[in-house]
């Protein structure tokens, strides 16, 4: 390795360190995106770009083929719009609930209580389960003859066929994704909480601050940078939600829980023949939406902190 340094000179050593990772990024992350862009403007179910024919914006036109943009039923690709709509409802709700719950949990775990390590483990445990396992497990619990209905029957409640109704299915979609991922954010928030100096709280105590006021006036503002990271990560992850819901509901009932990524997967992968072009077009639109969101988010957060 010293040989390398002598060869390229110390000035170029950072590139030597960067190249392996950068190569992998270019090859397995950025190149696929560019291939996707090409897919979106070409037709046929052929995998290799050189086998495909250019068709221009036809795929985009198909996606936007609607008679009334306010009513997805009138769109040729109504599922694209429904999935988009669902994503736009799912993401804010799921992220809000997730961050809310994770924050409360982190606050509890940050207290000086017995069994902190144990509880921390409990809340983190689901993060370790694979999405497929999580979904199968909950499907098995929530199905008509599942454990939850058994439990409800046992305590005298009428069993509910949870996954049959759009609203309850949506509720459980949010619940399960929160259940599975909140541990991750809890730990990050916990780390953020622990980074807040203790003496600031003591000062607040001397300053007669009630617990609520120390939370809103001290904890929240000081946690803001971490919350921002958590927020962005949670949004990205939430938009990417796929495996759990695919196994749990397949996007149903109807298309009530079908999110964008599932739509893309079904169009581009699970169908026969595979419509890579349409899937790529949809994914690029999704990417565009994410990009705009991130940009706005950055702008807001930069505007919010003036130091």
């Amino acid at each position, binding site marked *: 390795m010293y040989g390398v340094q002598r060869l390229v000179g110390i000035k170029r050593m950072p590139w030597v360190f960067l190249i392996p990772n950068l190569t992998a990024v270019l090859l397995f992350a950025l190149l696929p995106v560019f291939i996707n862009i090409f897919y979106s403007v070409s037709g046929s179910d052929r995998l290799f770009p050189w086998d495909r024919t250019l068709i221009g914006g036809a795929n985009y036109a198909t996606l936007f083929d609607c008679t009334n943009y306010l009513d997805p039923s009138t769109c040729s690709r109504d599922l694209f719009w429904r999935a988009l709509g669902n994503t736009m409802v799912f993401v804010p709700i799921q992220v809000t609930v997730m961050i809310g719950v994770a924050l409360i*949990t982190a606050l509890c775990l940050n207290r000086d209580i017995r069994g902190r390590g144990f509880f921390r483990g409990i809340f983190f445990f689901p993060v370790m389960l694979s999405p497929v396992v999580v979904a199968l497990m909950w499907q098995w619990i929530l199905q008509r003859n599942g454990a939850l209905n058994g439990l409800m029957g046992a305590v005298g409640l009428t069993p509910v066929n949870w996954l049959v109704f759009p609203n309850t299915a949506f509720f459980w979609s949010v619940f399960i994704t929160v259940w599975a991922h909140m541990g991750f954010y809890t730990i990050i928030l916990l780390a953020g909480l622990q980074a807040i100096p203790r003496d600031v709280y003591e000062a607040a105590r001397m300053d007669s601050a009630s617990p609520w006021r120390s939370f809103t006036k001290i904890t929240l503002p000081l946690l803001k940078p971490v919350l921002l990271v958590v927020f962005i990560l949670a949004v990205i992850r939430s938009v990417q939600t796929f495996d759990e819901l695919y196994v749990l509901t397949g996007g149903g009932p109807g298309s009530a829980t079908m999110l964008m990524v599932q739509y893309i997967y079904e169009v581009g992968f699970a169908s026969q023949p595979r419509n890579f072009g349409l899937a790529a077009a949809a994914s690029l639109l999704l990417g565009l939406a994410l990009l705009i969101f991130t940009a706005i988010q950055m702008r807001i957060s930069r505007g919010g902190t003036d130091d």
Partner: protein
Amino acid sequence: MTDLGMVKSGSSIGAFITRRRGRKRLDWTDWLTYVYLLAGLVIMFTPVLWVVVSSFKTPANLTEFPPTLLPYAAETVIVEGYDDPLPLFDVTTDEGETVRLAQLRRVGINAQMIDPANPEERLTIPVENAEPVRQIYLAGENYTNLLSSTGGMIWRYVFNSLFITVVATIITLIMNSMAAFALSKYRFRGSNMALVAILATLMIPATVVLVPTYMIVAQLGLVGNLWGVILPTVATPTGVFLLRQYMLTIPDELIEAARMDHASEWRIFWRIILPLSAPALAVVAIFSILSRWNDFLLPLVVLTRRESYTLQLALASFQTEYGIRYDLLLAMTTLTALPLAFAFIFLQRYITSGIASTGIK
């Protein structure tokens, strides 16, 4: 002059409610915390516990509704003249007595039963009068069936999963930390570009680029090869980000000191930076282990041969067009989650301290 003293009397009730640690009693916020955490414990853990308990249920016990809390199996008895063991039932006779009989066959609302003590006489009993005799029974055969149904391949899957997880994690750690080192400790043109390029990939859902990724893997001739799963996943943007944030906190003076000590840049990285980044490396390792171990879609398309299957793929093969084998699935789930549970137990204390020190603040 001392209005704080006056506040005291006015807010004594408030003071009582907000009374906090240092007093000998638990205050209400402590109670609230415990209630919340216990509720959390139930919600977070019972499903998992339920899976583990259920993995010991027989298929019949599994499909039962309402489900039983513990795994039960019908008690059976071997009766002379019958090859298979017969299930036992407690039958309430017309006189109100209860006798224990073995069921031969059930036809409609009636069942044919015999008294094990007196196998000659066949009785016809209405089904609603018969209550199966059951005992707690741990169906270890779910696990043994699992092993046999996978044709002894399970160790192969375990090996594959371990190989992918370990190798990918090691490569991830080395590659990410090299990149993070370059991006945190050198000032050079293009460093911002490189950082943005790496972080931008955070936003790309793996599912969406599955097809092109597969194509690239195929072009590299890695289909069916464990490396075809390992290589596309090693350049994780979060890993680079976390490590970089952490390395920013390592004083530059250490590097300068090492340079004055004749250390080459590689040696600085290998002997100084890497050991010092241990907490952040632990965090990245945990995340890498989790995601590699649980990876599903990419292995599904890339790992085509049974010998190259991972545990997750094997798990999925219990859910086919022909139905879900819950008994095997649950056993397998328990088995695949176990190593992670252990990994977590050993590494958990690094997670918070590690994240805390990676400077996400």
